[in-house]
């Protein structure tokens, strides 16, 4: 197959000269003041993905996601009218956390376990024990507090600003255009990893947001997995910078050798049916959705799969890296075991990444270096920080 990847140097800065070539300061990974600005001007004022509608297919199904940096607990519930809504997970009485489990199904109502105030699955306050003993209490005024929510291709996003300056569609911009109609619903969730890392949330996101490190850090597992030049340096097939987001795409390398296990698992099994997606640009597409969400689409054999990453800041130097693995329903046992094999390889690779994120953060925290230096293949990191600087500099809602 003809190679689509151009191998020359410094091609992406030619395409996007505005992002610059300067070193970036290390202080934004470390500063408590900066962390507070990111909370107030970024996380409180962006569309944040909290999950997928597939997680709550039935009436009364709900899940709870914490946006810890904003101290927000978001309850997403499918009401008896079939509509998905998001609320602050807080009781109207004395602000107790309403739902304590991460997911479940409610029988048409949600009960606070403190004084048993009862809400409908559409958020109205239905019942207050000893209501007669309150003073002018009108239940109609005390439903759950709604959170702005919208759904794109099955992904549930919330916005903590009571009046978002942009719709979700407009916020997603080029990502929404590129992935319109992508059949994410055909690739159900297979596994979730939630790893607490001793690192700033941007350290992990930056580390993932380039392919330069692959032939080095992941040399044992996937050193030759992606297209490289004759010096074995990674090159992208395509790279696009959007309003706030980005995507880089790559082709798989030709020299990648199959191990004995892989040879067995990738064998044609007679029931193989290709599952490819026209929305994909390369054989692996890494979409960064500002600020903290990644959609990573890739070809696995003849079948498309995807991962999502969420980087949930807990403190300036603590982050939960949440990884969700999605596969299509396997058509054969061979495909099912192949998915498991791929998941195990990915997990080993992610363990290399987690250790690296923490080692990078330690180095940053020593303040030995005032800057980080980025090359052309690290341009998506540069774009991300430029968006961040613009947002914090302007202090404007978007």
């Amino acid at each position, binding site marked *: 197959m003809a190679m689509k990847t151009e191998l020359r140097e410094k091609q992406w800065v030619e395409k996007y000269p505005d992002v610059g070539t300067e070193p970036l300061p290390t202080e934004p990974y470390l500063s408590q003041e900066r962390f507070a600005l990111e909370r107030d001007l970024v996380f409180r004022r962006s569309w944040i993905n909290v999950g997928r509608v597939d997680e709550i297919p039935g009436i009364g199904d709900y899940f709870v996601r914490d946006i810890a940096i904003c101290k927000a607990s978001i309850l997403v519930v499918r009401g008896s009218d079939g509509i998905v809504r998001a609320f602050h997970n807080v009781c109207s009485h004395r602000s107790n956390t309403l739902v304590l489990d991460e997911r479940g199904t409610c029988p048409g109502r949600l009960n606070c376990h403190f004084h048993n105030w009862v809400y409908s699955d559409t958020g109205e306050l239905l019942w207050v024990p000893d209501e007669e003993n309150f003073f002018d209490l009108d239940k109609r005024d005390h439903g759950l507090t709604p959170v702005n929510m919208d759904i794109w291709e099955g992904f549930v996003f919330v916005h903590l600003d009571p009046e978002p300056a942009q719709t979700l569609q407009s916020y997603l911009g080029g990502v929404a255009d590129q992935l319109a109609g992508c059949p994410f619903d055909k690739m159900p969730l297979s*596994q*979730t*990893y939630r*790893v*607490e890392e001793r690192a700033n949330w941007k350290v992990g996101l930056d580390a993932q947001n380039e392919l330069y490190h692959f032939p080095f*850090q992941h040399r*044992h*597992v996937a050193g030759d997995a992606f297209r490289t030049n004759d010096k074995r340096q990674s090159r992208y097939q395509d790279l696009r910078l959007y309003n706030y987001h980005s995507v880089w795409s790559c082709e798989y390398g030709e020299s990648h050798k199959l*191990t*004995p*296990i892989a040879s*067995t*698992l990738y*064998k044609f*099994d007679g*029931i193989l049916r290709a599952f490819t997606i026209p929305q994909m640009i390369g054989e692996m597409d890494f979409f960064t959705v500002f600020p903290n969400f990644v959609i990573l689409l890739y070809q696995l054999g003849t079948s498309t799969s995807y991962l999502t990453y969420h980087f949930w800041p807990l403190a300036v130097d603590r982050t939960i890296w949440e990884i969700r693995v999605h596969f299509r329903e396997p058509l*054969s*046992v*061979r495909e099912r*075991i192949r998915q*498991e*094999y791929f998941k*195990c*390889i990915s*997990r*080993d690779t*992610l*363990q*290399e990444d*987690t*250790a*690296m994120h*923490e080692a990078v953060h330690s180095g940053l925290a020593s303040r030995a270096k005032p800057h980080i230096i980025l090359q052309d293949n690290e341009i998506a990191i540069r774009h991300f920080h430029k968006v961040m600087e613009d947002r914090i500099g302007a202090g404007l809602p978007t």
Partner: protein
Amino acid sequence: MPAIDEPSLPEEFSDLQPYLEWALEPERARTEMRVASSMVEIRDFYDTVQPRLEAMIRYLEDFRDDPMPAPAHRLYLISLSLVEVANLVELYKRREVFEGCDPLRYASDQ
């Protein structure tokens, strides 16, 4: 645990009987087994089961549309343990991920 008269594994795979302890679920149990095993044990498990993987898959395909009988399900779980440790034998050639974090930070109960 298998019932008294029930074979632990399908008859065709009775040679894998010594590796029954690798028939584990969920994923966390397989990860914990991997972490608790020596490289000698892991290599022995891989060297015996890997050449049988093609036959195991062909056997298991017959059950893919139905609930698997318990012996077949155990065989299936052994195949999942095989891919759990495959990297260590085929690529890392050692028990630990290179410059990796504690693997139990990625243990999952799903």
